[in-house]
C-alpha cells in the first residue's frame, strides 16, 4: 500500500489524477474501520489532512463555503450560530473523539443515507464543489448523493467544499437512536424556516436510499402559513396543521426493515419528529 501525502490542494488533485485508485482519507472515521476489519485494502491512500485549503471556510456571494476537511467540532464552534441545523446534527455525531476527526466531506464521501450531516445540507439546498485537475464543478447535494453509499464523485475528483446559505430563521434537527450518543440514526429529520422566502424545508434521513426532501409536506405547511397570514402576524401553529405536516413527512419516507428498526416504526417516528421540529422552530420564530 502506498500513502500519498499532498501538502497543498493543487498537489492533492495532481496525485488523484495520477492515482485514480487511491482512496482519500480525511478523519478516517469511516475509512479506518474498513481498513482495520480487512474490508478495504486499497493500493494507495490519499491523506488529505495536510491540505490547508480543505480546513478553511469563508463567505462567498452571501453563502458559506466550507472546506470538506472542516471537522464537526470546528463546525459547532465556528459556525454554530450561522448553521444551527447542521450544528445540532453535528453534535449528535458519535462522540467527542469522532467529532474531533470526522468531517462533512467524509460524510458526503461515504454517502450513507444515515449520514447525519446530509439532511441539514439537503434542507438548505446546499451545493457540493468537486474538483479535478481538469476543472471544478458545483452540483446540488441532492444530485451528489445518488443512492445508498453511492455518489456522483468521479474517480479523478475530490470533494473540495460544500456551499450553503447561513440560516435565515430557526433550524432544527432531531434523530432517533437507542442512546443519546454513538448511534447510527434509526431515522432523522432536518427542518429549516426561511421567513423572507416564506418557505419551510424538511429533509428525512436514514429512511430511504438517500436523504429525502419532504416536498409535499413543505408545500402544505407553506400554504397554511400563507393562507392564515402567519408569517406576518406570527401566532401559534394550528395543531391540526402540525399533525398533517407530520403525516405528509411520514408518507414521504421510504424506509426498510433493518437491525436498527422496522419500516413502520420509522414512518411513525418521522411523523412525530416532523411535528415536534416544526413546532419548536415555529415557536422560536414566533417568540423571536
Amino acid at each position, binding site marked *: *500500500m*502506498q*500513502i500519498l*501525502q499532498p501538502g497543498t490542494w493543487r498537489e492533492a488533485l495532481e496525485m488523484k489524477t495520477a492515482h485514480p485508485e487511491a482512496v482519500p*482519507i480525511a*478523519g*478516517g*472515521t469511516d*475509512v*479506518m*474501520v474498513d*481498513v*482495520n*476489519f480487512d474490508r478495504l*485494502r486499497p493500493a494507495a*491512500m490519499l*491523506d488529505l*489532512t495536510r491540505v490547508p485549503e480543505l480546513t478553511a471556510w469563508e463567505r462567498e456571494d452571501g453563502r458559506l463555503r466550507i472546506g470538506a476537511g472542516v471537522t464537526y*467540532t470546528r463546525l459547532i464552534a465556528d459556525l454554530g450560530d450561522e448553521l444551527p441545523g447542521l450544528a445540532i446534527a453535528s453534535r449528535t455525531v*458519535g*462522540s*467527542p*473523539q*469522532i467529532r*474531533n*476527526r470526522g468531517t462533512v466531506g467524509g460524510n458526503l464521501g461515504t454517502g450513507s443515507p444515515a449520514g447525519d450531516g446530509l439532511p441539514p445540507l439537503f434542507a438548505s439546498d446546499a451545493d457540493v464543489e468537486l474538483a479535478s485537475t481538469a476543472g471544478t464543478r458545483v452540483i446540488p447535494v441532492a444530485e451528489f448523493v445518488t443512492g445508498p453509499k453511492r455518489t456522483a464523485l468521479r474517480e479523478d475528483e475530490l470533494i473540495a467544499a460544500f456551499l450553503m446559505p447561513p440560516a435565515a430563521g430557526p433550524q432544527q434537527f432531531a434523530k432517533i437512536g437507542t442512546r*443519546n*450518543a*454513538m448511534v447510527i440514526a434509526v431515522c432523522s429529520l432536518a427542518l429549516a424556516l426561511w421567513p423572507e422566502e416564506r418557505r419551510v424545508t424538511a429533509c428525512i434521513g436514514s429512511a430511504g436510499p438517500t436523504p429525502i426532501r419532504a416536498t409535499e409536506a413543505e408545500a402544505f405547511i407553506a400554504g397554511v402559513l400563507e393562507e392564515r397570514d402567519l408569517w406576518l402576524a406570527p401566532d401559534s401553529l394550528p395543531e391540526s396543521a402540525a399533525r398533517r405536516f407530520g403525516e405528509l413527512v411520514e408518507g414521504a419516507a421510504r424506509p426498510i426493515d433493518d437491525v436498527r428498526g422496522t419500516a413502520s416504526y420509522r414512518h411513525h417516528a418521522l411523523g412525530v419528529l416532523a411535528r415536534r421540529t416544526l413546532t419548536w422552530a415555529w415557536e422560536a420564530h414566533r417568540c423571536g
Partner: protein
Amino acid sequence: MRLNVTVNGEPREVDGVWEGESLLSALREHLDLPGSKNACEQGECGSCSVYLDGALVCACLVLAGQAEGREVVTVEGIADGEELHEIQRTFVEAGAVQCGFCTPGLIVASHDLLRRNPRPTDPEIREALAGNLCRCTGYEKILDAVRLAAERLS
C-alpha cells in the same frame, strides 16, 4: 515504512510500520506504549483515546502515516514519571477501576474534559465521556472520580 512522531514529548523514529496500520497499532506494536488499549478497532469504545496535536481522538481510527511529524500524547504521558496525575489518583480512590481495560482511555478523555472545562456539570461529564465504554463499573464511580478530580484540581 518509517514513522517519525513525537510521543509524550519525545521525538521517536520507528521502521517497519505497515502503511495500512493504525496509530494505535504503531503505538502498541512498534513504540512500546501498550497503555492505549485495543478493544474494538472501530471507534466505539474509546479505550485507545490519545491526543493528536492536542485533540482527543481514537488512535485506532488514525492512519499511522497521518501522525507523521505530529505530536501524540498517550496515557503514559499523563502521569509525571512515577507520580500519578490527580485524575489517575481519583480513579483509584473512587473505585473507578475494576478490570482496568477502559481506564487508560477514560483517563485521557477525562483529562481532556477538565482541561477544557475545569468545573463540569454532570451532564457535561456524561457527554464528554460518551465515547468511552466500561463493561464493569456501571459508570457511577467513574463520575465520582471525575467530580473529585475537578474539585481537587480547581
